[in-house]
């Protein structure tokens, strides 16, 4: 199936979904007739159960059809998602970098920032902290953002559990990068250094197999 045909099929599945949700929700909203409820209560049903049965008598057909359409659209959308994932070239995301390349770049960026911070600390010069904090933001934006953007594909390729373990380590590194930013802005470069080291350690645990 080429891309155009797949897009059209996806739109069809979307319409099925909208129709299914609409039909099911319309059925869910159906107000049970009070006469039917009273009749069921007089037959010995509990008032709440009578209400449920009365609703089911009036709405079951449309409601069930709507739910079936939702499941059908789910089946189709999942199938297209799988086809798309398997067609995409290997591990490369939209940014052009694979997860391993993002991790390598993150590590390299962290090391450079650590070295520059070390140099500033030894000079006791705090004037360039702002420049370092801006680089931290940029590093996070490009590489953590790049990895998160590939979530669906990575889950499809490696499974939810593997992705969960991988992104957990990336997030720990991200949080420590945020910590380094805050502590640097607050004027505690020693704590920032420690946070950057923690971020590097977290990245060492990043494996996606």
């Amino acid at each position, binding site marked *: 199936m080429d891309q155009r045909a797949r897009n059209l099929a996806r739109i069809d599945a979307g319409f099925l979904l909208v129709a299914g949700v609409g039909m099911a929700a319309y059925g869910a909203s159906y107000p049970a007739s009070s006469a039917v409820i009273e009749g069921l209560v007089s037959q010995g049903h509990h008032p709440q159960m009578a209400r449920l049965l009365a609703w089911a008598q009036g709405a079951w057909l449309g409601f069930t059809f709507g739910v079936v359409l939702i499941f059908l659209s789910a089946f189709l959308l999942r199938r297209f998602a799988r086809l798309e994932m398997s067609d995409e070239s290997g591990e490369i995301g939209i940014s052009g970098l694979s997860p391993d390349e993002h991790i390598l770049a993150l590590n390299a960026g962290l090391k450079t920032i650590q070295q520059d911070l070390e140099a500033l600390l030894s000079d006791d010069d705090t004037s360039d902290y702002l420049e370092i904090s801006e680089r931290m933001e940029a590093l996070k934006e490009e590489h953590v953002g790049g990895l998160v953007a590939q979530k669906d594909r990575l889950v499809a390729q490696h499974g939810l559990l593997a*992705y969960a373990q991988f992104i957990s380590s990336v997030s720990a590194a991200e949080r420590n990068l945020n910590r*380094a930013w805050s502590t640097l802005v*607050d004027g505690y470069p020693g704590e920032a250094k420690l946070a950057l080291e923690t971020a590097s350690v977290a990245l060492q645990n990043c494996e996606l197999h």
Partner: protein
Amino acid sequence: MSSSERPYPELTPQAMILGALLGVLMTAAFVYVGLKLGFGLGGSTVAAILGFAVLKALGTGTIIENNVNQTIASAINVSSSGVVFTLPALLLMGETFSWGAMVLSAMAGSFLGVVFIIPLRKQMLEFDRLRFPSGMAVASILKSPGAGVEKLKLLAFGALLSAGMKILVDKVDAVPDALAVGDWFGIPAYTGTLLSLSLMNIGAGMLSGRGGLPFAFGGVLAWWILAPMAVSSGWTDPFTGSNGDEVWGQLYGQLLRPAGIGILIGGALAGVIAAFPAIRAAIKTLGSAAKTAAGGGAQELSGKALAIGLAGATLLLYLSSSLTVGPVMALPVAVVGVLWTALAGLIVAQATGMTDISPLSGMALIGVTLMLAITGGNAVVAVTVGVAVCVGVGQCADMMQDLKTGHLVGGIPRRQQLAQIFTGWIGPVVAVGTVYLLWTATGDGSPGFGPESTACLKKGSGDCLSAPQAGALQAMIDGVIGGNAPLDKYAAGGLIGLSLGALPIAGLGVLMGLAMYLPFEVTLGYGIGCLVGWRLESSRGGAFFGGKVVPFAAGLIVGEALTSLGITIIDLLGKGA
């Protein structure tokens, strides 16, 4: 000691004391506001801004220390809504109950909420990357001193714009609170096609971006498709046919809102099932894998600590229930109460994470309905457990929002979690105590609030606390006891929510359910915000979004939140309250 060796102030005594003081003050004040006006207020932004001023004056005031301050203040304050929406209903009904049991129940809820939601931090913040717009807004405030002049200007501009609009709407009455856009296009009034002029709502939508669009779609489906179909099918009362507001009231209260609650619950259940492997992985890593060599200890509370907390909180809820229904009946009541708090907490935390909107009252309603069913219509125990559910659910959303803020500023989750656990219990004591004091304030045996209070019977009295939310819960309890709970809508909605879980779109059921649960004027404004945020992020890139859209949208949220609080205080003082 050189600047590079100084210890970094984080979980300091001054941050904890300031947070506790602000939390206690806000809890008492917000209980009063809730009884008077019927809505709750968030305290995180206020605490964060005051925190800077006070902590700086004390010689510290770091970003992460201030985050601890706002975490504690909101952990305490969050109980005010949970208590004020539920407990006063019993007083209005004239029921006799134990105030001690009520405090125990609210405290149990507070602990339960925190221990339930902590294991889901990784799932919600790291795997699903839920945005928690208010959490992002508070992080923007905390980071503002070092974020650069341009971001600060955008934050301030957004805040001023939003504050100005709020003043024009609420104080000057120069513009309406919502534009009747439906009238412009000839759309029937019963669809409630209004555009709320809440810039906070639009700002939250901007921060949610593409992820919030299914929410807007749900609103369109509910009000532009289902509502006209229901009316044309003759499902609304024909005697109210010409009055758009009355038809809207029927559609909303009797059809769409109950179905929306069901979809919310089913969608959340499906989400838990689908994400179970990731949740299991997250729980496995608690306390052990989160330990880092250079981090100096655990980053998360351990699973064992949480299990102990859970057991203790369950025991507390059992004790409070047994004071009302006896030890045997208290067991199922406590077990169902705990289970419902867990599920409802998850739903509210997810909804808040995706949209910044909390369906707290809907979850309390279901909790009370469940308890009424178990106890055969015992309103006292239903509300006693309802208090725990409401407080617990609020804690879930608040904890997760604070952890989002903490993630963005680099706080250590464990420290925030400990701060929340060790101070959250203060809120229930203050909130229940304030309700007690206000109820007995007259000293002559007549009620101090509610429609039958002396002040409210004197029409136009500025001291009247009408307790509107408790009145609504009282009416709902009467309806359930009379066999009129919309069980069919809950069940059908639940099935739709579960089936939506089969789609490869995370959180769709929760978003669709929430859209049906809310009036369209909220969904429409929010949807416009989502479209703007999505458009800017996709066309200008993530750096532009983070650097320009986030501070501006955060400003919109902060400006309206602070102005609402200011206007409320001015109004209450003006009425001589």
